[in-house]
């Protein structure tokens, strides 16, 4: 019974915690500019994420190692440090974007501009980290994030042509603006396959003391939670395609993104959008702050747990205190969170091999996983998607910067 409850909660929190500023912004921009044409990128990213999340849980349950622990142990400190630099830098940019997303949500609700929210929002995030437990952060924020299901309601209300939408699941070339198209495809992949999710998930499995009996639960949570989450991202794209594209509206700002929901659900759309962004970004900010602290603490061999008093793992608490404080600075100076989001999502794609390739080696190592190591399907799916993301990122980021 306890495990059935854990399973249900795991799926619900995966759905509630799936959307964040990156997935909403990239999907909204893609729908507004290219209609359904980029649905395939969400499908590909979600498929890869299902495998990666399942692997992260399996590694933790079988080997009792988090990903970071195992990478450091297996490949040595110099290599780990290289992974740490790349991954933490990108995760930090994503954290700035998420805090900015909360600020923007509060801006459209109150009229007070987002730079003024940078400090109070960062303080609340920090306070929850300081006082909260792992399950409060994992479950509380994600349950509130279930308001993002309103994007599915909005998509259904707009009555999409499902045949056209289904055709978007196969990659097609656009007639014009190819560099923007590929840049958005890369950003969507980066938003879907965020390495911080893996670090957070594997650390959570250790915090929750998973063992081999959790392997079936892990598989179901990864498959169903991520699939439903992927549907949410697709719903955002569909709403933007139907509500904004016919009117020629591009999503350059948060204010414009809100219009997709006011069109789809006139009565409550505005508030549902604002609350969706508020809770989704809040949950993501907590998860990223935790993931970065886990990364440092596990890599350097410090005490770590969100479930103990900060005095018992002072260096773990110091890392998130420092990171959250630094992340508030660019926002206080008015740096546009949407621009940071788009660049950080594309950079996530470009740096994916840094975190995923060593992880794939680990997942095939019998010392860590014994008979539970990866089969050829997992290796192929993840390997191919990461390769595609990396190649597209390397080609499209300079093209987008140079304007095609």
């Amino acid at each position: 019974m306890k495990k059935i409850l854990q399973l249900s909660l795991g799926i619900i929190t995966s759905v509630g915690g799936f959307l964040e500023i990156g997935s909403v912004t990239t999907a909204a921009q893609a729908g507004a500019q290219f209609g359904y044409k980029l649905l395939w990128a969400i499908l590909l990213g979600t498929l890869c994420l299902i495998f990666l999340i399942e692997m992260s849980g399996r590694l933790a349950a079988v080997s009792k190692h988090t990903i970071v622990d195992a990478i450091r142990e297996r490949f040595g400190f110099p290599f780990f440090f290289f992974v740490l630099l790349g991954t933490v830098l990108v995760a930090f940019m994503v954290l700035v974007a998420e805090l900015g997303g909360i600020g923007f949500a509060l801006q459209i609700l109150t009229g007070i501009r987002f730079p003024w929210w940078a400090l109070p929002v960062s303080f609340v995030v920090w306070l929850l980290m300081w006082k909260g437990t792992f399950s409060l952060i994992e479950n509380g924020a994600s349950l509130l994030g279930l308001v993002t299901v309103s994007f599915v309601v909005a998509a259904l209300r707009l009555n999409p042509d499902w045949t056209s939408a289904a055709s978007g699941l196969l990659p097609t070339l656009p007639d014009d603006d190819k560099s923007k198209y590929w840049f958005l495809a890369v950003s969507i992949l980066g938003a879907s396959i965020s390495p911080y999710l893996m670090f957070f998930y594997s650390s959570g499995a250790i915090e929750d003391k998973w063992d081999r009996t959790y392997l079936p639960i892990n598989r179901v949570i990864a498959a169903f939670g991520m699939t439903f989450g992927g549907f949410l991202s697709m719903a955002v794209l569909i709403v933007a395609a139907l509500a904004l594209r016919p009117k020629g509206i591009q999503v350059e700002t948060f204010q414009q993104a809100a219009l997709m929901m006011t069109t789809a659900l006139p009565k409550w759309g505005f508030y549902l959008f604002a609350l969706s962004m508020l809770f989704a970004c809040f949950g993501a900010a907590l998860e990223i702050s935790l993931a970065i602290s886990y990364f440092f603490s596990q890599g350097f061999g410090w005490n770590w747990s969100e479930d103990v008093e900060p005095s018992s793992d002072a260096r773990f608490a110091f890392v998130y205190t420092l990171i959250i404080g630094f992340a508030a600075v660019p926002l206080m100076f008015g740096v546009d969170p949407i621009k940071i989001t788009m660049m950080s999502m594309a950079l996530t794609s470009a740096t994916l091999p840094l975190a995923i390739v060593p992880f794939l080696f680990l997942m095939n190592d019998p010392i860590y996983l014994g008979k539970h190591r990866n089969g050829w399907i997992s290796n192929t799916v993840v390997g191919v998607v990461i390769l595609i993301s990396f190649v597209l990122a390397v080609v499209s980021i300079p093209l987008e910067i140079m304007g095609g």
Partner: protein
Amino acid sequence: MKRLLFATVILLVSCKPPTPAEQMDAILSWVGSAIVLGNGWLRHTTPDTYTRQTLTLSHDQLRQIGAELLKSPPATIDSTELDGALTRSGTHLARMAQLVEARNSPGFNQVLDSLELDQKALKQLSDKIESSQ
């Protein structure tokens, strides 16, 4: 490290400014946003502060992108016509923001109708620019 810095500088220096067609798309996007927003405000589905701030943002963006576009207008269109359409749209957006503050729905409705006419004029100019490229 030096090579990385050099590559970054080259990339940034070679950043290409948006084409006139892209600038017109951006202008139409802001005018379209204002129209959707305006209709929402008349139906009482968007709050006053958000509506006013977004209309002001649309006005500022329109002025900024329009000024850039008018620095080197495409030869295929009459720049006086473009300037006129942009000025009218900008005036209407600023007026709409004021009317939201005054909560004057009838007046707002009239200006919104005028903005829809501006949108048509801008769309025609945009089509001309796109067909010439």
